[in-house]
């Protein structure tokens, strides 16, 4: 059982990749990218977990009283969330422009170049 959370992250990653590759709608593809990214949250938090650990915040906890989960990966997950949200916004803006210019959001129909 000790690798189960890592396998969950792998499963989420592959599910998102499958969705990205078979997507027929660009908005759906952006959603799939968010799924791929959420697998990294699971992986990061799983790597940082410690049995019986609590949040590394000392506002109501005496230092040394309990084991703490790894704060470094939590900070990385926070970075990940922020970057993920902004990239999603940027991609959706691109999709909006594509829909306006080409009148479709199906990646298979976007074959020709247009100025």
């Amino acid at each position, binding site marked *: 059982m000790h690798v189960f959370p890592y396998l969950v992250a792998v499963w989420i990653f592959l599910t998102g990749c499958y969705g990205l590759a078979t997507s027929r709608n660009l908005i759906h593809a952006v959603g799939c990218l968010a799924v791929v990214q959420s697998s990294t949250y699971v992986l990061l938090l799983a790597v940082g977990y410690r049995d019986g650990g609590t949040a590394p915040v000392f506002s109501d906890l005496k230092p040394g009283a309990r084991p*703490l989960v790894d704060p470094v990966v939590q900070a990385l997950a926070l970075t990940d969330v922020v970057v993920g949200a902004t990239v999603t916004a940027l991609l959706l803006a691109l999709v909006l422009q594509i829909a306006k210019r080409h009148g479709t959001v199906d990646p298979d129909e976007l074959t020709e170049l247009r100025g």
Partner: protein
Amino acid sequence: MSRFFRLRVLAFGGAGLAALLVAACFDLPGFGGGSHPYGDRAVRASLARRTANVISSVNFDQRAYDTLGEMSILFAAVLGCVVLLRQNRDEHRDRPEPTEVALPVRRYALLVLPVALVTGLYVIAHGQLSPGGGFQGGVVAATALHLLYLGADYGALERVRPIGVFEVTDSLAACSYLVLGLAGVLAGTAFLANTLLPYGTFNTLSSGGTVPLLNAAIGMEVASAVVVLLARFLDQAVEIEEEKGS
């Protein structure tokens, strides 16, 4: 390439990737294990600098330089959205019609708006003490403003949200993060090194040296960035219409 052939390539590549990833998982340190050398050191460094929230200490003190990069990504993404979602030549702006809002929705939204706004500011201000910080609180504060769109209408939201002001605030916040970093250089230490200000008393609002200041700069940046982003998307949905017959 036919769809069927593409799926087979995907299945082949996916199977290979899955096998490699699963093999890698079995080589990772076991889940819930006790060995976290970087985590232990980060906690010690955070306690030495009297920052109660270790994650804030990692973000705004030990990895402050990386947070600068992260903020730049946020800034660049907002800039990209502003450019992409501008009004095109074949489009025009329509004043959105005032709309009727169901009374319970209106009451609830206007009741929750100040609470949500204060909660966002609280989360930003206590970033160095309790869970939260500039990134999280900024998003809460920015979305709180948009309750006005749900509770009243788009015109009301536009009156309390002058986009120009938020765009300038966004840039000012990014600059203030840089200036706080450069202050360290001028004082003879290093860029973004947290050795400039006294560390204060553990678990009080002013503890942690430059952490609360950098945290506030990020809170301001994220709040205005989210407001500008949402404004651009809402403009597209509500105001900007395609010209008839084009």
